[in-house]
């Protein structure tokens, strides 16, 4: 069996290395104002509303993940448990602790959250499960953020104890197979945990914008003449566009009738609107890093003789989309809608703060799976 190769310099970002048995004592020393604690005469407040376990098998992402955790704890106070798993090698555990501190909004006190990190070599399901469960902040919800492909570690004795499971299907090489596996797990657990796909969360601003568009009564009336949605997405974010297509179908009570040509062009059927199509197009002119609003570049809604509505950028990127109503029954109008760029930390924090059963995603999942496999 190959021996894991870990870049020790990456591990320095994890804080102070401690023996696994000393983790609680080390955290206590920190929060009681001992060595290493921030020097603030008003004192330190420890904040924790939930447990966030972050699992990765990518050892190169350690410092990036620590920075991400630090960023998201500003929005969502939690105990972060970072698990870096190396399936190769003999079973062994190394652990680190650190705190992420910030001054409170009024600058009066230092608010801290803790990060406990583990490097598990020879990681198997049993070792991961035990490491997570042994270091939870009791009575608080457990959210598990799985990074990368689902592996054998994702098994019933782990997921049956979770409250939420976060993943990013845009990172999956075989999303069809992975979604099938995930759906089976959710079913097996009796829907005991809520799933969140970051690829779906990325579509949140666009979903909200579409909902706002149809707050307009004239637009709502014109929906009866819906012909098509055209969705432009940035490279590597096809799944977000497919999620949006599945969501649109779900909101309109539509069922998939066919896929047209080799493009991502789908025809849906509804009782009220008749047939309409959704086309997802990669906007190759924009690279992922340049996109100001996550994964989706814009949407055009064609309403036949009733007109059209577009949501997208106009000219230079900004923190807003421009929504344009060009409807036959009303004068042309525009409105800016916020769509600031969001980091991975922003997306996870949004999920942690929003909570809920995420029903709309669950409702759209069967259609998404159809779109992926077509």
């Amino acid at each position, binding site marked *: 069996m190959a021996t894991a190769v870990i870049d020790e310099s990456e591990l320095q970002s994890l804080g102070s290395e401690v023996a696994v048995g000393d983790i609680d004592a080390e955290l206590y020393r920190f929060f009681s104002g001992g060595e290493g604690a921030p020097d603030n005469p008003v004192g330190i407040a420890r904040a924790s*509303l939930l447990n966030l376990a972050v699992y990765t098998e990518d050892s190169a992402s350690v410092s990036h993940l620590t920075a991400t955790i630090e960023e998201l704890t500003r929005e969502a106070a939690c105990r972060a448990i970072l698990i870096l798993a190396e399936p190769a090698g003999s079973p062994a555990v190394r652990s680190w602790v650190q705190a992420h501190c910030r001054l409170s909004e009024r600058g009066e006190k230092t*608010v801290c959250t803790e990060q406990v990190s583990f490097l598990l070599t020879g990681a198997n399901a049993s070792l991961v499960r035990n490491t997570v469960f042994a270091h939870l902040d009791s009575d608080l919800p457990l959210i598990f953020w799985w990074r990368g492909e689902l592996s054998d570690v994702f098994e019933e004795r782990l997921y049956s104890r979770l409250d939420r499971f976060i993943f990013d299907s845009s990172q999956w090489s075989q999303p069809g197979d992975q979604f099938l596996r995930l759906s089976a797990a959710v079913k097996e657990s009796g829907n005991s945990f809520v799933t969140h796909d970051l690829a779906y969360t990325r579509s949140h601003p666009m*979903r909200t914008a579409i*909902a706002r*568009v149809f707050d307009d009564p004239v637009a*709502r009336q014109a929906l009866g003449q819906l012909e098509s949605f055209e969705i432009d997405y940035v490279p590597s974010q096809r799944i977000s566009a497919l999620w949006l297509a599945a969501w649109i179908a779900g909101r309109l009570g539509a069922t998939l009738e066919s896929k047209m040509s080799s493009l991502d062009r789908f025809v849906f059927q509804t009782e009220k609107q008749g047939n309409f199509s959704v086309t997802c197009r990669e906007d190759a002119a924009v690279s992922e890093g340049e996109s100001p609003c996550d994964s989706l570049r814009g949407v055009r809604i064609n309403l036949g003789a009733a007109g059209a509505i577009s949501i997208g950028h106009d000219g230079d990127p*900004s923190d807003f989309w421009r929504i344009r109503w060009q409807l036959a029954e009303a004068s042309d*109008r525009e409105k800016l809608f916020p769509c600031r760029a969001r980091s991975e930390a922003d997306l996870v924090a949004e999920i942690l703060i929003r909570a*809920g059963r995420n029903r709309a995603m669950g409702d759209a999942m069967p259609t998404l799976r159809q779109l992926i496999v077509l």
Partner: protein
Amino acid sequence: MDTNPFHEDDLDLRNRPEPCTVVIFGATGDLTHRKLIPALYNLAMKGDLPAGLNVIGFARREKSDEEFRKDLEGETKKNQGDALWEQFSKTIFYHQSEFQDLAGYERLRDRLDEMDREGGTGNRLYYLASAPEFFDDILTHLRNAGLNEPREQGWSRVVVEKPFGVDLPSAKHLNQIVSETFPERDTYRIDHYLGKETAQNIMVLRFANSLFELLWNNRCIDQVQITCAEHLGMEGGRGGYYDTAGALRDMVQNHLLQLLSLIAMEPPADLSADGVRDEKVKVLKCLRPMIGEKAVAENVVRAQYTAGTVNGQPVVGYRRENRVNPGSMTESYVALRIMIDNWRWEGVPFYVRMGKRLPKKSTEISIHFKQAPKVLFNALPGAGDTPGNVLVIRIQPNEGISLGMRSKLPGPAARLQPVKMDFDYQTSFGGSGPEAYQRLLLDAMAGDATLFARRDEVEQAWSFIDEIENAWHKSANPPPMAEFPAGSWGPKEADELLKERDHVWRRL
């Protein structure tokens, strides 16, 4: 299609605001500039405003749309080249008219109809942000111009800013005018305290946690204190208004009695606006009236501050403040012992105090639980000197909740020490939620009146307050006006009010 199929409950759980035109009366005033327009702009920034929202500022001064927008920029626009402001400001218009001029309202009607023809919805939200003496005229002319009538499938609502009357007769008169113009379901009497997260959290704390509600009665609670302390005095010329109102009318009649109602109410049948307000008004009906000078003198202390020091700076006494009558008999401080004569609260005093020029700014509610029996640890010498269990709800600043309890001091002796468990909104959630006006404006656009006062609530509160005002200002032998040095925690008479029952004001 009647409903918007794209809204998700998971995305947005609150009531959804509907497109409308907001007409602000008193558009050149402080409230519009400092609160209303910034609140609308911040909602636009978050994408929470409905599409098709327009704002019309109605005021007396001559001004063009452009000049009005320019005036509003200072308080609102975030930075130069702010694209959102450029667009948002295009939806703001100015309408010049005297409040007493019917023709001005007729021109407003024509303008609104024109906007509707260009894609408006017919929904109108009239916001009375003018000086209260104009409310009569505005409401009467809205009615005479037919602006109160809903257009086709639209709605017409009115938001009325405080003060809602200055006593019971004036409140009844205003309510009468309002009800002749708008039905109660379309009337939104704003009390911005109810828009604060911590005020809304009172019901969650009580009715979503089994722990507290079981103890929430006269068997377990000894006393309740509601404190609204302000370190400011009469800066910025506010003495002119304040000297005609006083602490009792300015703060207690509305904000503090609203907080008291939320603390004392029974669980509502549901969370609808009337479900909640039905229970709040029942509390107000149960307030033991203070009829006559004697009852008022026994249960209420009024006072004015004298010269003192606040934040290290010397300050003048109340009667020497700018625009305050040197012989003023208006209270800048008031402390009350209020009894609620119902099954749950019989015998539990609710102490309410409000004052200007106190040591710091703070609004808090504290629930003081009864002492544990004086046996075992509480029988030890000195055990009774430490506070018992106190639940504190901090409304502002430092919004949060804390629970005090007794704990054993480490060591061989059984010595008790008060300790505190603390929940702080900022620490746990990184902030304390949107500004109150944002929430309340959205609710008014959505037709949710839960956080607004109903007619009977307002009148019931005035009915209680008027007895006290009458004893102070209309009786032959009015209770005295006490004094205290600015920067201290009020007059000794207020301490004595609690001492009668062996209580003390909580140290904030």
